């Protein structure tokens, strides 16, 4: 909502400075978004007079003028056709900035003749579109006077943000009322003019609405005018409209726009000659259409509230009028509409057809239902004042809706809800200044004025009181202490997520946060793309589907980093993926990738590329941080198909519960994402990890033996198809009482080992219990190890 300071002062008598008014607007909830004063840019320009104008010696269209600003004379070369001796002009001198040209004046030679300054056109000063010649000022302009002072341009334009509840401040009068209530001055009364019509209008209105849709247009008041003159509106009105960014069109149209911003009262005028019969409000039929004032043709879906004549739809009620029934400079007879339209219906129709107008904006927020007749009379007077003509008696259909909204108000609620200790009388006085009437004693009955459709309950009344009393007066109070138990702020899962992030950062990965949505093709590559997860109105086709995995985002990020010269990356993200659109379809997943070198070239070591085992190690680190029982996990070589089929796997708790997948990304997937490999990645499904059982902080007693443990090495030959994991599990299980650890320290395939076999060398740690091992004890355990390895994977001890 925009308005100028002088416009505000039409309704507010005040001595307050602009700064005070701005501060108060903020304080009462009318947030100041900006203040502009055209005078700021035009301060240096002066009124001057052309003393002589001679033809330029070397140019047909230029003149050499002598110009006086009262103090001195200067020579200016000018190309304007209207430059001539004696006229008063607007002068800019060297050093002055000309806003319309985005240019600072200097001394120049134009076709060999010195020129110091410029006489400006309206367009050059951004005061209009007129560029046919330089500005000619009337005689009352004083040579040497500041142009800003002469043209009364010192007019601050204030823009405020209006929250959706405050339609009463979508008119300047409402803003003045709020400021007056807040002590910024005195509110002036609105005109209560009543124009007596001299004849009965031949055009009338009917509300042809079914019983259950009466509320769409409960009241329609109109008046006909004959013999009006629809020229340009007066300068003062044009200036105000321009100041708030509206384009003056013609007196009649400008009046409707002006009243809309002045009083928050939308109006419409029809050219009476273009109406076929009388007006009616009715429900649109599907397929009816009209050319609207915005130049577009709208076809009704059926069900909209329209204003029509006997033949055609003219416009959407409360939203937009029709071009064919609109006013032109030739219009002489008009019909003025001042009506009420339903908030919800207006909003719905406006949204359905994508029309945003000042009228819709006000109606959908709730126009004052008790201000229809007075609004119409004020508009009538304006039309008569500016366009002349003969008014008819008013005609109308429907009735003023009942307005009797009261709210019970316990004054203590200002304290118990708002925290401010105010006496009841103080609250009542504030409410009365805002136009509420208050009756009874505490608890009071507050009668809500008809322009405050937003005030529904006691909390709204408290807000009104606090708002005017000042939110600054709200004291700062601490919440009472509670018996909140330490460590209960985060849920178990939140703790898992937090620990996982910190752990992955500790192993050298960088946490990224990427979009929850992605290109649907990418989603499809990763098992997603379900119709239920497609965004209906995406911001771009690159972000049109909820992600089934974070991997593609991280892989693409790796690609972007590679393009920037960083091909080796380790990235992770802990965030949601979406299996379906239900609450349970969103899973929390820790996802990571590594690309490029796992170990970069360095004098201390040999470099190597990332491998599936880096991803497995990362996955295990994440799982361990998330308190998954990592010792009990089994690696399966089945994994989702976006991984390399031979270099990927899953980590499971039992055969079904998949806690993680990991692997080298499939080369075809990388190609589709346009990223060079190898890239390895993992996904840890945090929701699949069983909640850790915890009975207390104590860790249980530590049982350690004083006896020295013993290590024994075994080299087994086994088929290449046999799994090392199975071998380890079998060996570890060979004698659970004594075997505490099994490690693979060497793998060998090649010379000395049959083609389809490999050699796996293990070291087994034996922990004695009670007494040290005798040789025969160790021999017995070794036999069990060999037997178990044979049984589980067909391994034979290498000779």
């Amino acid at each position, binding site marked *: 909502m925009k308005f100028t300071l002088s416009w505000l002062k039409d309704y507010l008598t005040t001595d307050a400075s602009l700064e005070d008014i701005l501060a108060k607007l903020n304080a009462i*909830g009318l947030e100041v978004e900006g203040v502009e004063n055209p005078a700021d840019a035009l301060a240096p320009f002066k009124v001057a007079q052309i003393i002589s104008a001679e033809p330029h010696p070397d140019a047909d269209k230029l003149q050499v003028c002598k110009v006086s600003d009262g103090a001195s004379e200067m020579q200016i070369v000018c190309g304007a056709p209207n430059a001539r001796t004696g006229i008063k002009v607007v002068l800019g001198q060297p050093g002055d900035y000309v806003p319309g040209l985005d240019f600072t004046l200097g001394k120049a030679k134009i076709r060999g003749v010195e020129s110091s300054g410029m006489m400006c056109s309206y367009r050059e000063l951004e005061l209009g579109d007129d560029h046919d010649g330089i500005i000619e000022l009337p005689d009352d302009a004083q040579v040497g006077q500041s142009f800003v002072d002469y043209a009364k341009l010192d007019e601050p334009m204030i823009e405020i943000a209006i929250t959706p509840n405050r339609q009463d401040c979508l008119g300047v009068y409402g803003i003045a009322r709020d400021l007056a209530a807040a002590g910024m001055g005195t509110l002036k009364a609105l005109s209560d003019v009543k124009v007596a019509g001299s004849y009965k209008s031949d055009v009338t209105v009917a509300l042809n609405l079914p019983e259950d849709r009466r509320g769409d247009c409960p009241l329609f008041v109109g008046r006909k005018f004959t013999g009006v003159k629809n020229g340009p509106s007066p300068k003062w009105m044009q200036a105000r409209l321009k100041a708030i960014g509206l384009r003056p069109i013609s007196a009649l149209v400008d009046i409707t726009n002006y009243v809309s911003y002045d009083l928050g009262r939308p109006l419409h005028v029809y050219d009476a000659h273009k109406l076929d019969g009388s007006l009616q409000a009715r429900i649109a039929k599907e397929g009816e259409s009209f050319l609207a004032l915005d130049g577009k043709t709208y076809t009704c879906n059926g069900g909209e509230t329209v204003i029509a004549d006997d033949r055609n739809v003219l416009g959407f009620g409360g939203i937009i009028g029709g071009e064919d029934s609109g006013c032109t400079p030739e219009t002489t007879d008009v019909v003025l509409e001042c009506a009420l339209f339903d908030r919800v219906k207006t909003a719905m129709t406006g949204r359905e057809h994508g029309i945003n107008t000042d009228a819709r904006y006000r109606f959908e927020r709730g126009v004052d239902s008790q201000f229809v007749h007075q609004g119409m009379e004020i508009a009538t007077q304006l039309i008569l004042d500016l366009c002349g003509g003969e008014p008819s008696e008013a005609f109308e259909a429907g009735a003023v809706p009942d307005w009797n909204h009261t709210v019970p108000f316990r004054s203590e609620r200002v304290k118990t809800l708002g*925290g401010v200790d105010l006496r009841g009388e103080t609250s009542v006085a504030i409410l009365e200044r805002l136009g509420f009437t208050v009756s009874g004693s505490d608890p009071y009955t507050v009668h809500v004025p008809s322009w405050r459709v937003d005030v529904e309950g006691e909390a709204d009344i408290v807000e009104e009181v606090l708002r005017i009393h000042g939110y600054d007066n709200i004291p700062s109070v*601490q919440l009472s202490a*509670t018996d909140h138990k330490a460590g209960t702020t985060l849920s178990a899962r939140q703790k898992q997520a937090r620990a996982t992030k910190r752990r992955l950062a500790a192993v050298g990965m960088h*946490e*990224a946060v990427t979009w929850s949505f992605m290109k649907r093709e990418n989603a499809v590559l990763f098992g997603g793309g379900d119709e239920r997860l497609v965004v209906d109105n995406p911001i771009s086709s690159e972000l049109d589907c909820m992600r089934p995995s974070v991997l593609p985002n991280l892989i693409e990020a790796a690609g972007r980093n590679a393009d*920037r010269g*960083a091909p080796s990356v380790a990235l992770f993200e802990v965030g949601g993926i979406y299996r379906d659109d239900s609450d349970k379809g969103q899973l929390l997943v820790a996802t990571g990738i590594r690309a490029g070198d796992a170990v970069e070239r360095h004098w201390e070591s040999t470099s190597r590329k990332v491998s599936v085992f880096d991803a497995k190690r990362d996955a295990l680190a994440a799982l361990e941080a998330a308190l998954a029982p990592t010792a009990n996990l089994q690696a399966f070589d089945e994994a989702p198909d976006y991984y390399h089929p031979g270099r990927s796997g899953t980590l499971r708790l039992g055969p079904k519960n998949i806690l993680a997948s990991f692997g080298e990304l499939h080369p075809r997937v990388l190609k589709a994402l346009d990223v060079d490999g190898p890239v390895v990645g993992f996904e840890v499904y945090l929701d699949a990890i069983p909640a850790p059982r915890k009975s207390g902080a104590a860790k249980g007693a530590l049982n350690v033996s004083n006896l020295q443990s013993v290590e024994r090495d075994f080299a087994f030959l086994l088929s290449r198809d046999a799994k090392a994991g199975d071998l380890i599990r079998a060996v570890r299980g060979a004698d659970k009482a004594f075997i505490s650890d099994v490690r693979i320290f060497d793998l060998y395939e090649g010379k000395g080992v049959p083609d389809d076999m490999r050699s796996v060398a293990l070291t087994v740690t034996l922990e004695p219990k009670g007494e040290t091992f005798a040789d025969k004890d160790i021999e017995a355990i070794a036999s069990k190890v060999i037997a178990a390895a044979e049984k589980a994977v067909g391994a034979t001890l290498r000779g």
Partner: protein
Amino acid sequence: MQEQISALKEEITARIDAAGDVAALEDVRVAALGKKGSVSELMKGLGRMSPEERKEMGPALNGLKAEVAEAIAARKETLEEAALDARLKSEKLDITLPVLDHASGSVHPISQVMDEIAEIFASLGFDVAEGPDLESDFHNFTALNIPPEHPARQDHDTFYLKPDANGDRKVLRTHTSPVQIRTMLKEEPPIRIIAPGRTYRSDSDATHTPMFHQVEGLVIDRDTHLGHLKGTLEAFLKAFFEVDAVTLRLRPSYFPFTEPSMEVDVQCSFEGGTVKIGDGNDWLEILGSGMVHQNVLEACNLDPNVYQGFAFGCGIDRLAMLKYGMSDLRAFFDADLRWLKHYGFRALDLPTIAGGLSR
């Protein structure tokens, strides 16, 4: 005999001094004290002596043996020291060579700020609640007193999923406020929660991205009022920005789900192109808040005549930008390694009240 002992001692001492290394010294030891060594041989003669002779020679021979052993030990230590010195001299490395770093990754500023916020509110007795990103219309709008025709719905630039068979369509939650609803429907007051998470609106420029992060706060009990809201926000912002004091400006505003509603500005300065929270002559809009609307309480089956409380919502990304000085929100989501390394936090920078929130 005495002369013999003296001569032998002299001879052995000379050989000890002449031994150039530990191996040569060992030879000297064996030649003197070994089973057939010169000293041992003399000792063997003791048995053949008369008691008087033995009484005299015994201590003399034992003295010789001890002196020789001592001299050998002393010489051995000297030789070992010299050998170690020589070895160390040969083992010099260029310690200016750069080493392979321990891997060090980083935690994203959004995670860090979420952890900071959780830490602050933990000390005020709050729990951290969560809700899904894909929300029902009920939780995101209707229960928050935003009926279908409400103008506020248009201000939200909502993303929708495709309608299901019943014509219902899920929204990508436009704020974290639906977690208020989920919490009130599930839990009995008193309630104190914060709800950080991802939110979505169709918007894109330097300070708006189609996905961003908010944190919601909700307190419901029987007597919490606007003063408590102000006190809580002051405590939060003071702790978060790690300053001695903050000055808040409360401005009346409108949110469908609170009444009274207010926007909160914090006093700051913009000197030298950076924002400094805590003093100065400017105001920075930082969050929206208010007392939970009666209709919202009723939608959650809470009696507004019994229960009341406050709610607030704040942009996490914005808090991060203000505190840590990033200027472009879009970079938060680009996973540029240079940005992550610069703005990210070490794994061990876990914010605590005792140890401080920022590094």
